[in-house]
C-alpha cells in the first residue's frame, strides 16, 4: 500500500513528478485518462486567472477582501479529480480551485467574495459546503457528513481541507479523532503552505511533519508534494478507496506554498523574503503539470494561447455579470435565518420597510 512506503516520522515525502514534468516514481504514477488530465489542467488555469483578476478587482475596490489560492492549485485539483461526483468537499476558505472543480460555478465563487451569500448557494447536486471562516471548525462538519454517509450506506466519502495553522486548533484534533473513532469515510488534507498569516509552520507545532499527527489517531498519514498534482491525485485516490472500504479516515499533508498574500489585506513582504517566494515559483504546480502534459503530447503552445485568451474573457465576463446581478434586497437580508419567520422578526422587517417608505426623499 502506498502509505506504507512513506513514513512521515522520517520526513519521507511522496511525489511522482519532478520540476520538469518528468515522472520520477513510475510505481505510483496514476492512471488518468487524457480528457480528465486536460480538464484538470484547464481548471487549474481557470483558478489561477480568476485569482489574478480578483486581486485586480479587489484593488479597484470592486470586490471584498479574499483569500488567494495561487500556488496551491495542485493540492486541490488532484484530490478533486480523484473523487466521485457524489463525494463531499468541505472547504476552509482558500479552496477556490477545488470548489470550481467540484461544480461550484465561477459566478457563485465570485458572488461570495463580492459580498453576497447567494454565492454560497451551490446547485443541489453539488456536494460542497460553504466557505468556512472559523479556523478548524470544518473538520468536525466533515466527520459528521461522513458519519451520515456511513449510517445511510450512501457510498459517499468526504474530503476536507485545513491549513498548517489550523492543525494547532482544538477542532482539528476533535474532528480527526471523532472520524477515526467511528471509522467514517473521511480524508483530511492539510495544505501546509508554510505560514498561518505571518506565523511560520515551525511555530504551529514541534512535530517534524503534520502528517505524523495521524499516528496518534490510529490512522494513516502521508506527506505529499503538494505542488505535484499527480501525487495528490494518487494519494487521495488510495485514501478514498480505504474510506469507501470501511477502513476509516486518512490524513494527507500537502507540502505547498502560498504564492500570494494570506488575504488581500495582508502584506507578506513583512514576514518572508522574496528569494523564498522565487524558490517556490520555480516549483509552480501549473508549470510542472503543463510540462507533463506537453511531454505526453496532450498540450502545446497553441492550445495554451487559446486557453489563456478564452479563460480571461470568461472570467472578465463573469465578474461583470456578478456586478450586475449581485445586489441585495431587503428580503435577502431577512428571509433566510429561519424556515418560517418568527412573528418578532416579521414585525422588525415590516418596521424597516415602513421606515424606508417614510424616509424616502429625506
Amino acid at each position, binding site marked *: 500500500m502506498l502509505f506504507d512506503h512513506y513514513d512521515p516520522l522520517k520526513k519521507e515525502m511522496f511525489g511522482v513528478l519532478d520540476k520538469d514534468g518528468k515522472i520520477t516514481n513510475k510505481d505510483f504514477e496514476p492512471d488518468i485518462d487524457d480528457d480528465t488530465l486536460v480538464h484538470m489542467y484547464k481548471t487549474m488555469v481557470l483558478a489561477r486567472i480568476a485569482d489574478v483578476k480578483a486581486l485586480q478587482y479587489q484593488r479597484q475596490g470592486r470586490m471584498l477582501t479574499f483569500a488567494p489560492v495561487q500556488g496551491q492549485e495542485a493540492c486541490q485539483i488532484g484530490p478533486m479529480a480523484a473523487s466521485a461526483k457524489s463525494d*463531499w468537499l*468541505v472547504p476552509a476558505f482558500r479552496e477556490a480551485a477545488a470548489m470550481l472543480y467540484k461544480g461550484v460555478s465561477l459566478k457563485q465563487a465570485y458572488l461570495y467574495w463580492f459580498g453576497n*451569500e*447567494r454565492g*454560497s*448557494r*451551490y446547485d*443541489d447536486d453539488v456536494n460542497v*459546503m*460553504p466557505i468556512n471562516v*472559523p479556523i478548524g*471548525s470544518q*473538520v*468536525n*462538519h*466533515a*466527520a*459528521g*457528513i*461522513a*458519519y*451520515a*454517509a*456511513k*449510517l*445511510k450506506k*450512501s457510498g*459517499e466519502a*468526504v474530503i476536507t481541507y485545513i491549513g498548517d495553522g489550523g492543525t494547532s486548533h*482544538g*477542532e482539528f484534533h*476533535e*474532528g480527526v*479523532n*471523532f472520524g477515526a*473513532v*467511528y471509522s467514517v469515510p473521511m480524508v483530511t488534507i492539510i495544505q501546509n503552505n508554510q505560514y498561518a498569516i505571518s506565523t511560520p509552520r515551525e511555530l504551529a507545532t514541534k512535530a517534524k511533519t503534520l502528517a505524523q499527527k495521524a499516528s496518534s489517531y490510529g490512522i494513516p498519514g502521508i506527506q505529499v508534494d503538494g505542488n505535484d498534482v499527480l501525487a495528490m491525485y494518487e494519494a487521495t485516490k488510495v485514501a478514498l478507496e480505504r474510506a469507501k472500504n470501511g477502513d476509516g479516515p486518512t490524513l494527507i499533508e500537502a507540502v505547498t506554498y502560498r504564492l500570494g498574500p494570506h488575504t488581500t489585506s495582508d502584506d507578506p513582504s513583512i514576514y518572508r523574503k522574496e528569494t523564498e517566494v522565487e524558490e517556490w515559483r520555480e516549483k509552480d504546480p501549473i508549470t510542472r503539470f503543463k510540462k507533463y502534459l506537453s511531454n505526453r503530447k496532450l498540450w502545446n503552445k497553441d492550445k495554451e494561447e487559446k486557453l489563456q485568451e478564452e479563460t480571461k474573457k470568461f472570467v472578465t465576463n463573469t465578474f461583470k455579470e456578478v456586478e450586475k446581478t449581485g445586489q441585495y434586497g431587503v428580503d435577502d437580508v431577512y428571509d*433566510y*435565518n*429561519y*424556515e418560517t419567520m*418568527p*412573528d*418578532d*422578526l416579521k414585525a422588525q422587517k415590516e418596521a424597516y420597510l415602513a421606515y424606508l417608505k417614510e424616509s424616502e426623499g429625506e
Partner: protein
Amino acid sequence: MAKLTLLGAINNALDQQLEKDKNVVVYGEDAGFEGGVFRVTKGLQKKHGKDRVFDTPISEAAILGSAVGMAANGLRPIPEIQFSGFMFPGYNQIAVHIARMRNRSRGKYPMPIVVRMPYGGGVRALEHHSESLETLFAHIPGLKLVIPATPYDAKGLLTAAIKDNDPVIYFEPKKIYRAFKQEVPEEEYEVPIGKARIVKEGSDLTVVSWGAMLHETQKAIKDLGDDYSIELIDLRTIAPMDTKTVIESVKKTGRFMVVHEAVKTLGIGSELISRVNEGAFFHLEAQPTRVTAPDITVPLPKGEHHHIVDAKRIAHEIKKLAHFE
C-alpha cells in the same frame, strides 16, 4: 396514557422519534451504553442500535460540529451536552455554524438539530453543573430555545423540536427531572414552539417564569392563598418569545413580574420587561419587577440558597408588587 416524570417523558419522545424516523440519531458523552449520567437516554441504544444511539469522545466541539455535518447530509441529529456549563468548547459550533448555516447557504443546508442539555441549579453539584445560560442562546439569531416545566410539555416540545427544520436548543431543568409525574399520552403529539402557556388565570398581577422556577413560583402563589389573583405564565419557549400572550396578560393586570434562575443583568427578564414596556406601557400600574439570581457566579452548594430564589422570596416580592401604589 402513562404517568411519567419529566425525564421519562424526554426518554419517551426520543424513543418514539427514533422509532418513527430513521434519520434521527442520539449521541453524546455517556449517552449510549449507560443512557447518560442522568439516564435520560436509558435503553435507547439497546433498542435502536449502536449506530443511532452512541457514546462519543469527550469532545463538545466534535459533538456539536458533527451535528452540522450530519444535518447537511440528511440526518436529524440530537446531540446531548452532559451539563450546560460544559457547552463552551462547543459553543463555537452552535453560534458560528448551527445558527448560521441555513442563512449562509441561502437555505441549501437547513440545520434540523436539537441540542439537549440539562441546566439549572438546586442539585447540590460541583462547579459548572448549575448554570442557567438562556441568554447566551436567545441572543443568537437562527436559534430557538425551549424549556419544558412539565412532563407533558417535555414530550410535546421535544417532539416539535425534532420535527422542526431549524436548530432548537432544548434545556432540561435537571432539578425537576424526577420531581413529579404527570399523565403523558403514548401517541405522538407536539407542543408548539413559540407559544407560552397560561398556567393559572388571574387579574391583579402577571408572573412569567419557566423551567424549575415555575414550580417555585406556583408554590409561592399557593402559599399566598386567595388574597391575590395572580396570572401565571409558563413561557416554555425563550426564543422566539411569545410576546403576545405576555402583553395581553399585562394589559389585563397592570403589574408584571418575571422570575428566573439566571443572573439579573441581561437575563431574559430584561428582554421581557422591554417588550412589556413597548407593548403595554400605558397599562402599567407599577414598575416591572425582576426576581432573579444576583450577578455573581453560582456558589458551591453551601451557598447556593443565597443565589437561587425560592418560593418564600417570590411570595415576598409578589406582595410588594401587588401592594405598590
